[in-house]
């Protein structure tokens, strides 16, 4: 046994400092949940068909069990007795340049952390949880995919993930505010900025003010119709948290803290999240664990809020204003990983004449291929588009002309799929559909 130990020590010494850091991180995360998921895969290999990567490529290394295995084999090698004593028998792998390279390719390049495989796994292995843990190890080694890292850096350094300067943000919002005023023909209509003591602090995906502001106008119009007491912060408004994707818990915590501070600074009651799948998951579910305390305020998605407006008749919709057939794409992180499942259906059914479910749907839906930060990683773009074929086929089968989805990230991927697979559809946010169906009250004067 002593001899055994010497050999192990010698092997460990050949690890680089960074590799040691990564292994240390893995060890620090080994709670009951991680232990369970790292130890439970039985290599049955039945999960391939549940993953869009495998379905679209038939690459043997892309079945979810294999993705679990590459992480688990490193865990086995360094953190279990069996793996230390008889690595070959258990497929335990040395952590070296080759395994690191494989790890990067699989956990960044071949998994969108959509979680579909977990629901169908013979055992119940939480695959995305393991994949994210591996990404965290790569954060320690400073080996995060560059596009993903620079998006995280932009958010940390500039306050939003696209590096929009504050004055340009304000300028855009003022322009949209004037537009709204004209559209609804009411001088009092506006997009309130940095207003204190509001009921709702709304957030945005930076790609809205930067390139696609129509979704902001849509939501502003809905708030106007509902006479909501709301505001946008010009300092902290980013609903995304790419650190969730990169696996960087420190960064993720920092971004969450900023939102908390802004909530208390503006004395707002409810934090309302723009249509953003991972943003919902990160802020609603993961955030409190990063900052290690519950929020003193409520967090909901704007889709849930719109659902409330409809139920309580605060807004009136006329579905005949949306005549084209509409289908819905369920963003993984909001639906399977976030539990917002029925309300978007309720909202759409109230806003359009003809709604068609795509199959499968809800918690069983396929990822569009753009999740897990894939949109920010150009090096895997080809795979991303290829894996999106599953979604493209699903959409085509519905025969819908409009695909609605409450996630800007999905929208971007769907736009590319639309072109690549010639779907001939229009992609919209739920807010846009609702705004199109809004019936504004006749003004009394």
């Amino acid at each position, binding site marked *: 046994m002593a001899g055994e130990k010497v050999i192990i020590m010698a092997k460990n010494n050949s690890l680089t400092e960074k590799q040691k850091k990564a292994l240390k991180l893995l060890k620090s995360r080994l*709670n*009951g*949940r991680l*232990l*369970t*998921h790292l*130890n*439970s895969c*039985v*290599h*049955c*290999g*039945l*999960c*391939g*068909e*549940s993953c869009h990567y495998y379905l679209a490529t038939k690459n*043997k*290394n892309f*079945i979810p*069990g*294999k993705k679990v*295995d590459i992480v688990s084999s490193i865990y086995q090698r360094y953190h279990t007795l*069996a793996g230390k004593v008889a690595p*070959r*028998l*258990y*497929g335990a792998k040395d952590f070296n340049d080759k395994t690191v390279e494989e790890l990067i390719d699989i956990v960044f390049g071949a998994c969108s952390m959509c979680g579909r495989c*977990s*629901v*169908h*796994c*013979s*055992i*119940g*292995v*939480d695959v995305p949880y393991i994949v994210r843990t591996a990404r965290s190890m790569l954060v320690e080694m400073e080996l995060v995919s560059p596009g993903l890292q620079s998006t995280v850096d932009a958010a940390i350094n500039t306050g939003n993930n696209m590096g929009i300067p504050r004055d340009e943000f304000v300028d855009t919002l003022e322009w949209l505010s004037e537009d709204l005023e004209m559209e609804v023909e009411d001088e009092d209509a506006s997009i309130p900025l940095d207003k204190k003591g509001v009921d709702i602090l709304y957030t945005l995906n930076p790609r809205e003010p930067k390139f696609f502001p129509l979704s902001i106008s849509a939501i502003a119009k809905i708030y106007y119709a509902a006479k909501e007491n709301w505001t946008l912060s010009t300092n902290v408004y980013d609903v995304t948290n790419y650190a969730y994707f990169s696996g960087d818990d420190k960064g993720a915590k920092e971004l969450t803290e900023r939102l908390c501070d802004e909530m208390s600074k503006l004395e707002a009651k409810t934090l309302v999240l723009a249509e953003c799948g991972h943003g919902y998951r990160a802020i*609603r*579910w*993961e*955030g*409190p*664990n990063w*900052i*290690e*305390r*519950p*929020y003193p305020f409520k967090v909901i998605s704007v889709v849930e809020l719109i659902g409330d407006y409809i139920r309580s008749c605060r807004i009136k919709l006329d579905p005949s204003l949306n005549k084209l057939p509409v289908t819905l794409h369920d963003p993984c992180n909001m*639906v*399977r*990983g*976030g*539990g917002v*499942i029925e309300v978007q259906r309720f909202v759409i059914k109230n806003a359009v004449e003809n709604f068609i479910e795509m199959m499968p749907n*809800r*918690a069983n839906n396929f990822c569009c291929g753009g999740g897990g930060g894939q949109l920010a990683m150009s090096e895997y773009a080809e795979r991303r588009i290829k894996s999106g074929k599953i979604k493209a086929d699903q959409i085509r089968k519905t025969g819908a002309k409009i695909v609605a989805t409450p996630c800007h990230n999905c929208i971007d991927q769907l736009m590319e799929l639309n072109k690549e697979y010639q779907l001939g559809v229009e992609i919209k946010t739920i807010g846009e559909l609702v705004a199109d169906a809004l019936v504004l009250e006749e003004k009394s004067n």
Partner: protein
Amino acid sequence: MTIFHWILLAGFVICLLSCLYHFFMALPAGKDIDYATPDAKTRQAVVYSFTKAMSPKKKETAFMHLPTYTAGIFYHLGTFLSLFLVIFIFFNVSFPTWLAYSIIVFLAFTSICGLSILIKRMTSSLLKNLSNPDDYFSNILVTGFQIITAIYLLLNTGLEYYFIITTILFLYLPIGKLRHTIYFFTARLHLGIFYGRRGTWPVKK
């Protein structure tokens, strides 16, 4: 009690203790507090996780692979039965002939299921790519255990071999992939809690 009885008993105790160790390590501990306000009651989701979520209706790994899934189910039933029989064989309780023969036929069938899974693992390129020696060994060990149980019941000799294989099984169980005996339960539990808090499970429709 023969020396084989003692060895088997020791193997069993070691197995039990290490399984308990694994089990308690894998239950939520320390950092597992979830600070996010839950949306739903997790209890129902955990129940769902162990029941409906496992049914072939809900699970692709089952309904898209029905032959393998069915073989797997029978294989596991054979294992449970064989484990249960250890008690009887240990205390030398004999069965009426009809019962012994029924058990033998059943175990013969479940061992064939086990073997077919083994053959699939050895021939499918997808599975070969995923498997390590432990996967093959575990299957051989468990299938062997079922076969030897059947043989012992049939011929009523070779008790030593039966005891040795069973002891090896007990000792190996907590080390290799067979420890999914424990982790299966904690995985269902953790996944149930995860989806339960978020309101994704139980699936209502």
